[in-house]
């Protein structure tokens, strides 16, 4: 049996829980949520990293769909709700393949039924507009993690890719974390500054996640996780879900991307713009400057290191498909996960270890957050703190 066959066999039993997929945003940008125009029951490889057939080929058993919205919108709440509506419509549209999941038990039920558990994660504290009531609204709608920031600071938390402002979490930021603990919404520390990661770990009584971040020791990029933070995951019980984004995981790609972003801005586009016009500019740049290519081995290098530092019980996968223009060779779209598992098998990872990486850790972490929430709800009322009252 080749290692790819062994990987597929393993994934049949312990499928991948992926921490981050931006299909909803891609559907918003490409077709304004006209789900028939990008029917994921059909082959969408010309337009998207994601469709149902490729999710099945990739051995995906649970997906945190990102309900991301851009942080430069004047009001992020309406767009976030539209993203949630998009996920719920997708699930309603494909009941044989997708199942809405809001608990660890739902994830296991979906696995038993052979459906893909569909969870939701909000990407950036801007999606709650400084309101704990809105945070609870997102929870009520099924959102089960919130990344504290996206690429820009929020009023109460610093981002990894912005200038330091409050120096981690403000008092209100810590209250947001406590309220998330009380609700059972996972605190996601991808995208946040290392100071914010440490403050959140100090505050959170529930496991935290990194929905799509890799190792800063392997590739020095602010989106990755420093070792001192990874070292704290065993005590916290949380997990780091390795991401594939070449510009975060491959040192040569980090530098290339800086130049490419500069080129996008020079042509008047937002550097994350993935519209056809923007991609045309991007491709022209790429012709002049060949793009460094990350591979399956690049990602496996991160996992090897993260395993050394955090331990096998604290790792997962968060591909960031449809949220990034480029993907590593061999991990081109959501059908690629078996290649990563095969690579890790070749590197001597045991089947028991891989089951933790793909499925078990993520289910355990969500379940643990539910336990903490049940405990806290017995003693703590919903917080009505405001940013004005706590941060002045």
């Amino acid at each position, binding site marked *: 049996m080749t290692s790819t066959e062994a990987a597929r066999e393993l994934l049949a039993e312990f499928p991948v829980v992926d921490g981050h997929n931006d299909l909803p945003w891609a559907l918003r940008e490409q077709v*304004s949520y006209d*789900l028939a125009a990008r029917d994921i029951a059909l082959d969408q490889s010309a337009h998207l990293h994601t469709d149902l057939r490729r999710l099945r080929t990739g051995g995906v058993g649970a997906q945190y769909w990102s309900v991301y919205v851009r942080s430069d919108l004047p*009001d992020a709440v309406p767009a976030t709700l*539209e993203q949630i*509506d998009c996920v719920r419509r997708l699930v309603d549209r494909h009941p044989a393949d997708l199942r809405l999941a809001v608990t660890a038990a739902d994830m296991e039920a979906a696995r038993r039924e052979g459906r893909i558990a569909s969870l939701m994660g909000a990407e950036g504290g801007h999606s709650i*507009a400084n309101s704990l*009531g*809105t945070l609870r*609204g997102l929870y009520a709608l099924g959102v089960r993690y919130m990344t504290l920031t996206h690429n820009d600071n929020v009023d109460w938390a610093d981002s990894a890719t912005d200038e330091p402002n409050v120096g981690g979490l403000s008092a209100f930021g810590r209250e947001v974390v406590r309220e998330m603990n009380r609700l059972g919404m996972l605190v996601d520390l991808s995208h946040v500054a290392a100071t914010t990661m440490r403050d959140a770990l100090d505050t959170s009584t529930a496991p935290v996640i990194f929905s799509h971040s890799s190792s800063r020791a392997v590739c020095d990029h602010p989106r990755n996780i420093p070792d001192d933070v990874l070292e704290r995951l065993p005590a916290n019980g949380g997990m780091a879900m390795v991401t594939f984004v070449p510009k975060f995981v491959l040192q040569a790609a980090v530098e290339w991307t800086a130049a490419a972003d500069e080129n996008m801005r020079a042509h008047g586009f937002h550097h994350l713009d993935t519209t056809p016009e923007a991609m045309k500019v991007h491709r022209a740049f790429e012709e002049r400057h060949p793009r460094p290519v990350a591979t399956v081995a690049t990602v496996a290098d991160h996992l090897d290191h993260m395993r050394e530092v955090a331990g096998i019980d604290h790792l997962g996968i968060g591909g960031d498909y449809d949220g990034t223009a480029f993907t590593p060779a061999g991990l081109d779209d959501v059908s690629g996960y078996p290649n990563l598992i095969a690579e890790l098998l070749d590197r001597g990872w045991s089947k028991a270890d891989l089951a933790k990486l793909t499925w078990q850790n993520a289910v355990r972490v969500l379940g643990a957050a539910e336990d903490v929430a049940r405990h806290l709800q017995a003693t703590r009322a919903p917080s009505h703190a405001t940013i004005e009252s706590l941060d002045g």
Partner: protein
Amino acid sequence: MADLQDDLHTTPEIGALPVERPTGATVADAFPAEAYAAALEAVDRVRALLAEHPVADGYSGLPRALRRLPWYDLELGETDVATDVPRLREGHVGALFWSLHLPDDARPDPALSATLDQLDLARTVIRDHPEGLRLARTAGQVIDARNCGRVAVVLGPATAAALDDSLGILRVLRTLGVRVLTLAGTSWASEAGLTRFGEEVVREMNRLGVLADLSGASDATIARTLTLSRTPVLCSRSAARALRPHPDNLPDDLLAALGAAGGVCMVPLAAEQTGPTLRDVAEHLDHIRAVAGPESVGLSGTFDSGAAHPQDLTDTACYPRLIAELLRRGWPETDLALLTWGNVQRVLRSADFAARAAQERREPSAARTVELDD
């Protein structure tokens, strides 16, 4: 559960309430024996009637009123508001629509965020009073709540501005429990009536089972919605314009049209719209029953919404007094049962059925204002 059901029907205070039981020597002087007996009989009739057909109150501002209070206890009684569990029981209120409307004054938050905050508060209050209140999303759940001795809380009306011109947000608000939306105050439901997008909103509301509230809507919006909607609409707080001119009151032609379409006009206990006395309210009810029909009239307390109330109708315990007056005016019990409970139940149930039928036929609408209206 069974003992709670009994609680609802036989609270000890109830004897004092519907109309003051005449007692003592002075009363005997004032009332001849037969009047005394008739008054007692009226009390019993009101009580029996409301026990069978409690009040579905179409508009309560309680969630926002509670926001101002640092602390409250609805279970034991809360004098700072006009609504609490003991007085809901006294008034035989079986269902209560909780308004998610926003204050008219300065709005620091965008409408959607403010509405989400109100929804969150409403859900928290309901969760904190499990013995008294229960969230009801459907007509069936209203009945369930009543059978468990709880007051069913129906969320809405919400303001149309909360949709931020997005049908996706309408669907999400429905998921959070919103059951009624007031079609006024947006570009697509304005004085000029419904735009094409506005019509699409009504169709999507039908698909979701969100009731249209036309109180405060323009006459053009009302007329178009009555034609378009596949399920009856509500007017959450409208009285008769023929008796008292007020922009939210309905002229006779619209009342007749509402009646023909099976909608329900819920008369507010708001002095500004009805007049300052209980008799004034009864006049409006008489008039609307005559013009729109007994199947198209309902009650709307408007308590804790900032409205000034007519005399003797100042909190949720007041309904037996009003029903006693209507009995005196010769309303048959069947019409009173429709007024307090039956009409609202019919409208909710009809919306539930229409939604199930529409979901078989129609995909969620992805229409946007820019496509339909520009």
